[in-house]
């Protein structure tokens, strides 16, 4: 399978005042194949977001390379993002912060459509895709609930007709009752539009539901990579095992997660 997005020994460091640099991502090699849903899990601070941001060109690499469609992903500087790279889009964690509160939904989605040349689907169609009425385009973000906002954010990302969609914990700030629904929605849309999806979450039980493959990250490194079933049922890495054991299950049996 050809790879849309390829990480090759990627490293990202942050400068810290008065301390040694922090290697947030430390030699990650990973490929996101065409049309695939890749789940990336790991604990808080292990470098998931940093990796996602690097894939969008938002962080300078201190080592390795990221290639999109065979060409390197360049850093997003002061200027505008090159057309080519606008085919990589991201859905963020906090639906309350990812939409501009002062602009109408419609025009924000329009921005997405205008980002690329070619015939992007009309706003109404995009909204329908994410299960919203077309007339919401005239409203402002504060009139929507978290789940609805996340749908809008997805629609905006889709408007740019991305080849790769990155979800950086898109469900983490949603109500428990919504999490599974939004995750499934993302998966469905991705497969319908043939978009590769890198889905980041710390909730393995949700990732497992939607991902084809799962990568487990710890302290900046990928410690395990395999198909969803493999990782879930037969984890090889001790850390993955611990992670899995720690997941509480709503079975009504009172099973205390292992810690």
């Amino acid at each position, binding site marked *: 399978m050809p790879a849309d997005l390829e990480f090759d020994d990627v490293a990202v460091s942050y400068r810290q005042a008065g301390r040694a640099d922090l290697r947030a991502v430390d030699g990650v090699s990973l490929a996101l194949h065409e049309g695939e849903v890749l789940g990336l899990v790991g604990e808080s601070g292990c470098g998931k977001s940093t990796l996602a941001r690097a894939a969008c060109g938002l962080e300078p690499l201190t080592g390795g390379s990221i290639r999109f469609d065979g060409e390197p992903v360049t850093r997003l500087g002061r200027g505008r993002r090159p057309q080519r790279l606008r085919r990589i889009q991201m859905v*963020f964690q906090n639906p309350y*912060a*990812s939409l*501009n*509160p002062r602009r109408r939904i419609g025009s924000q989605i329009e921005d997405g459509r205008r980002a690329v040349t070619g015939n992007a689907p009309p706003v109404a169609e995009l909204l329908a895709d994410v299960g919203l009425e077309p007339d919401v385009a005239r409203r402002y973000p504060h009139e929507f609930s978290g789940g609805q906002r996340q749908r809008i954010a997805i629609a905006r990302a889709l408007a740019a007709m991305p080849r790769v969609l990155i979800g950086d914990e898109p469900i983490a700030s949603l109500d428990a009752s919504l999490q599974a629904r939004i995750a499934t929605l993302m998966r469905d849309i991705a497969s319908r539009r043939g978009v590769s999806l890198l889905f980041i979450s710390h909730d393995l039980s949700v990732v497992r539901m939607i991902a084809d493959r799962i990568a487990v990250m710890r302290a900046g490194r990928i410690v395990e990579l395999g198909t969803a079933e493999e990782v879930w049922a037969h984890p090889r890495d001790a850390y993955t095992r611990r992670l899995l054991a720690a997941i509480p299950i709503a079975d009504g049996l009172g099973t205390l997660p292992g810690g």
Partner: protein
Amino acid sequence: MSTDAAAGPGGRRTLRAPAWKRRRRPLLPQQWRRPMAIVGIVVIVFWLVIAVLAPLVAPYDPLAQEFARLAPPSAAHWFGTDVLGRDVLSRTLYGSRISLPLSLILVLASMVIGSVVGAIAGYFGRVVDEVIMRIADLVFAFPTIILAMIVAASLGPSLLNAVIALLVVSWPSYARVMRSLVLSARGQEYVVAGRLLGAGTVRSLGRDILPNVAAPVLVLATLDFGNAILLLSGLSFLGLGAVPPTPEWGAMVSDGVQQFSSWWLAAFPGLAIFTVVVAFNFVGDALRDALDPRTAEAVSEVSV
């Protein structure tokens, strides 16, 4: 307290979002219903009306020197007359035509300059930020009124020069607020999303950042308005601002200093300054309360 603050960009506390119906626009009409805000608005409107209608409401020509000199308040001259035999009431009323627009100009100019400079510092960061903010620090380290005095003294007294002098010292507070707001707004997800969709610097600043940080800056401006009037009249009081025979309040108070026993010379223009300033402070304070807490913090840090 709703959880809105926590749902802010930092996402510091809540990992989940509050129900959408709790989300409100920052400016609530409720805030206008507070007694302090009402008093403030009434006073401001009063002075605005006076400023517009001064020729109609003032009993005499503010420049006419045709009355008895230094007459105490009487039925004919409610606020008395001054050294040259001018009607103090008329001068006080006409004074609003000087102080209000000039303070407005001063506040607007320093807001525009400070905001632009601060936005540039916040958005570009690094060296640009360092240089701009160190300059701002310097201006802060230099005593405001003394700096203004030097500028006014060397440019010569005139209201315009006073405004310029105060502009030199008043932009940094806006720059600071703007910078810190832009700095935090810059990392906001919707700004990043816009950039990913191909927005350049100008569009990103103009569409995603500035509209969202305008409210606190405007509140700061309201709070600053009173300050501007005080500073301007202070310079005029020192003889570095208004040029005679302009009926400027600070200059009128300064005339009163020369004639101590004619208390009415200073008392009424002083009261005029006070009422306008306190009115703006009332309104500004209510507005600041209406802001959401995080941005209010940014404002309160600076407006000393």
